[in-house]
């Protein structure tokens, strides 16, 4: 028995396409404790969204299929739930904020009703009570409740994302999955939305999985961080260790790629090469073709998860003592 709210073990998800089978997520292991925020970081195609969709079982099938693993939510395996059991959890105990506030709202329904819908469905209350709850949620995210009759196109991008947040929080979920919630927004609006999410999360004690590619947001909003590359978590640590002492060559490469606001850097040190083709992943360590420290063994032996200090897990052969590491 652990106090993990969510624990993912060995999750493997495949997409079966004409071009071959794509393993989007491979043997993924993650956990989120009650009330904490986990940042899930990676580039396009790393499998972040697929991981999120697997938790609430919204992986489009076909072509997607969860082929193995367990997703334990309060020690119950969600993957074993029947569709109607899952429906009672989704949007209720676990809810999600999507990336694009333009496409995740129904364009032909007033926003107030879209929030009421979730409340009526999950809390078995009448229209009137649902309406009150929806008005309360809108006020909470900073939208005057007299706008509940407005349609999504009448709101700006930032306001729409607020509606999405109101909807996701309307049933007081225990876990909130936010998939790039601010990527489509301008920085000043992003700051508003992040601030709002933080304060609401504290108020309700909701745990959150924050998917992003922006390490700045992670430094600011998360307790733990998981870095994903080509379908696996390659480094997991608390925010402090990850930012002050990154271990995996990919994580270090990411830091070297970001231009800094507060320091003069003449030249960036990008990771060479490109993300691997998902239908043709490199053997063993999937990062080895781009890794500056790779040795022959990296293409032969799959790195294990090595816990180098309490709670800091890296999957790289350097930390198994098989490959020489950085000269410090």
């Amino acid at each position, binding site marked *: 028995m652990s106090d993990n709210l969510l624990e993912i073990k060995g999750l493997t998800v495949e997409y079966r396409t004409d071009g071959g089978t794509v393993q989007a997520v491979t043997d993924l292991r993650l956990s989120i404790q009650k009330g904490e925020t986990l940042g899930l970081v990676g580039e396009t195609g790393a499998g972040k969204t697929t991981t999120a969709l697997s938790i609430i079982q919204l992986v489009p099938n076909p072509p997607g299929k969860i082929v193995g693993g367990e997703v334990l939510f309060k020690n119950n395996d969600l993957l074993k739930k029947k569709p109607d059991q899952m429906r009672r959890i989704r949007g209720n105990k676990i809810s999600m904020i999507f990336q694009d506030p333009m496409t995740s709202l129904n364009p032909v329904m007033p926003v107030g009703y879209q929030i009421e819908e979730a409340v009526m469905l999950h809390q078995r209350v009448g229209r009137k009570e649902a309406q009150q709850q929806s008005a309360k949620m809108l006020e909470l995210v900073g939208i005057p409740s007299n706008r509940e009759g407005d349609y999504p196109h009448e709101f700006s991008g930032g306001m729409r994302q607020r509606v999405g947040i109101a909807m996701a929080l309307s049933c007081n979920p225990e876990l909130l999955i936010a998939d790039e919630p601010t990527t489509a927004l301008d*920085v000043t609006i992003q700051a508003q939305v992040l*601030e709002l999410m933080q304060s609401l999360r504290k108020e309700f004690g909701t745990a959150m999985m924050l998917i992003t590619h922006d390490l700045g947001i992670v430094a600011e909003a998360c307790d733990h961080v998981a870095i994903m590359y080509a379908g696996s978590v390659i480094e997991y640590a608390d925010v402090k260790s990850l*930012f002050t002492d990154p271990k995996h060559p990919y994580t270090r490469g990411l830091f070297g*790629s970001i*231009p800094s606001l507060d320091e003069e850097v003449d030249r960036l040190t990008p990771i*060479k090469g490109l993300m691997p083709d998902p239908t043709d992943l490199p053997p063993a360590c999937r990062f080895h073709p781009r890794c500056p420290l790779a040795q022959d063994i990296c293409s032969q032996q799959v790195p294990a998860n090595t816990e180098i200090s309490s709670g800091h897990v890296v999957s790289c052969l350097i930390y198994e003592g098989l490959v020489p590491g950085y000269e410090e």
Partner: protein
Amino acid sequence: MEHVLEVKNLHKDFHTKKGLLKAVNDISFYIAKGETLGIVGESGCGKSTTGRAVLRLVEPTSGELYFEGKDILKLTRNQMRQFRKDMQIIFQDPFASLDPRISISEIIAEPLRVFNLYRNQGGAKRVAELMDLVGLSKRLVNSFPHELDGGRRQRVGVARALALDPKFIVCDEPVSALDVSIQAQILNLLQDLQKRLGLTYMFISHDLSVVRHMSSRVGVMYLGKIVETTTSHTIFTSPLHPYTKALLSAIPIPKYGMKRQRTILEGDVPSPINPPKGCIFSARCPQVMEKCRQQAPPLVEAAPEHTVACFLISDKLGK
């Protein structure tokens, strides 16, 4: 220093159903030879329209536009054509800006053919040279855009812009569509090319850290106006305009324990159709005064190489 581009009182209006949209509203700036001027701002502030207007890709409504000392707004279409060789653009979206039906080599050769220079400049050899310059491998000559990833596509866009040996390139959000590790590769490429070929850039982006990294001077735009211009070092160490300050404080910094005092701006950027009277930023400014709502603040020189349009500064200077 010699100015490659000098812009004076540039306006660009669009007539829309809802009224007159002042996308670029009376802006002036210059770009010196070999330097990079960064233009930063949020969506809808007019930064891309500015980039296109200085190339006359959209026709400015009024203003003066000097390219190497010559007012190019006075040129006829035919005269302008000759200048186009010297001024090129790299677009944001490497998917939409490349013709999907022609091969990479044809895309890169197209500017040469348009100017009937293909033969003279060595034809296929010149294309190979350009591909080499931007780091595209030779085997891709006959590939089509859809076969390439975003980073390589953007390299094709860069090669095409370089085909005519330009002096000045507008880079309109060239890395916004790319992942960070690829973004860094393209930024390095642009810097290398600038050094090697002595190029002058106008670098447009919404990402302040990218702009700071690339530029020697930065102009901050808001609602069709430049509210502050200074060196890229100063803009980050001692910004003056309240909007610049808010913009800077809104950026999350990827370092542990860097949480700063944050100025959160209320509301959204107002519509550029019928913008607020007085200072364009007055509706969201945390330090707004009564007169800001009545009249627009003048652009004043707060320090050498540092101009700002805000009453807080101009009043203090007594200007």
